[in-house]
């Protein structure tokens, strides 16, 4: 087993474990800590896949901004921050649906080549040229949707609004 394979194996196990732990622990602040580890782990996978720009973006946007936003969401909606969630039973239906999804997707994996392939790395300057060139309309659409959604969010939380 090569060093890259070992690194991927560790990162994959950590991603699955922290993702599951984030949803199963009963203290919400611990959830945020697990999800922060999950995001950092995914950014490490991006670096392994030689996509450093995406790795840094993942660190900044997810591990930084989204984590802090979620933490603020918890802070302003709870009287005591370290309070436990009421235990909710895990029914058989959600578990079965998740398993069916996983088995359905994993059954398609056999269609792809099992052999090891070289990973292609891209210079970030080419990526930015592509992002603002042929994929410019997508970026414009993202900007418009962000503007609309931030306006909507401000409308939702503004003071003095009739419920």
């Amino acid at each position, binding site marked *: 087993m090569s060093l890259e394979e070992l690194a991927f194996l560790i990162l994959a196990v950590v991603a699955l474990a922290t993702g599951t732990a984030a949803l199963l622990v009963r203290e919400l602040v611990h959830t945020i800590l697990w999800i922060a580890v999950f995001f950092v782990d995914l950014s490490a996978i991006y670096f392994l896949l030689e996509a450093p720009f995406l790795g840094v973006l993942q660190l900044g946007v997810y591990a930084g901004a989204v984590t802090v936003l979620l933490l603020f969401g918890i802070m302003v*909606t709870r009287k005591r921050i370290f309070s436990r969630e009421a235990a909710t039973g895990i029914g058989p239906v959600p578990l079965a649906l998740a398993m069916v999804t996983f088995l359905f997707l994993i059954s398609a994996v056999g269609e792809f*080549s099992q052999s090891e392939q070289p990973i292609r790395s891209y210079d970030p300057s080419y990526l930015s040229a592509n992002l603002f060139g042929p994929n410019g309309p997508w970026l414009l659409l993202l900007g418009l949707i962000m503007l609309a959604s931030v306006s909507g969010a401000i409308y939702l939380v503004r003071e003095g609004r009739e419920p």
Partner: protein
Amino acid sequence: MTTLALTGFLALSSGLLAIGIFGILTRRNFILILIAIEIGMNAAILNFVYFAAFSGATAGLNGQSIAVVLIGFAATEVAVGLAIVLALNRLKGTINVAQATDLRN
């Protein structure tokens, strides 16, 4: 040059999507549901990055560009989700989605 097999990555994102679906269906707290959606969304973004790394130059650059745009979309979605959390908390005093039943009648 790094060499890896694609199948392991596909298995990882399948597992992450399954975890996300499981979380959306079982949790009742709105913030936990948002987190579960984020895990599922990250599985999709990871797929774009894998296929970008294992395909030709033009397709790969397009895949990474779409991944950048999707990360932006996901951040926007969290912002709107948290605004809904705050509105729900002001209206109901709780963020338990089982109690948000105003539109049922």
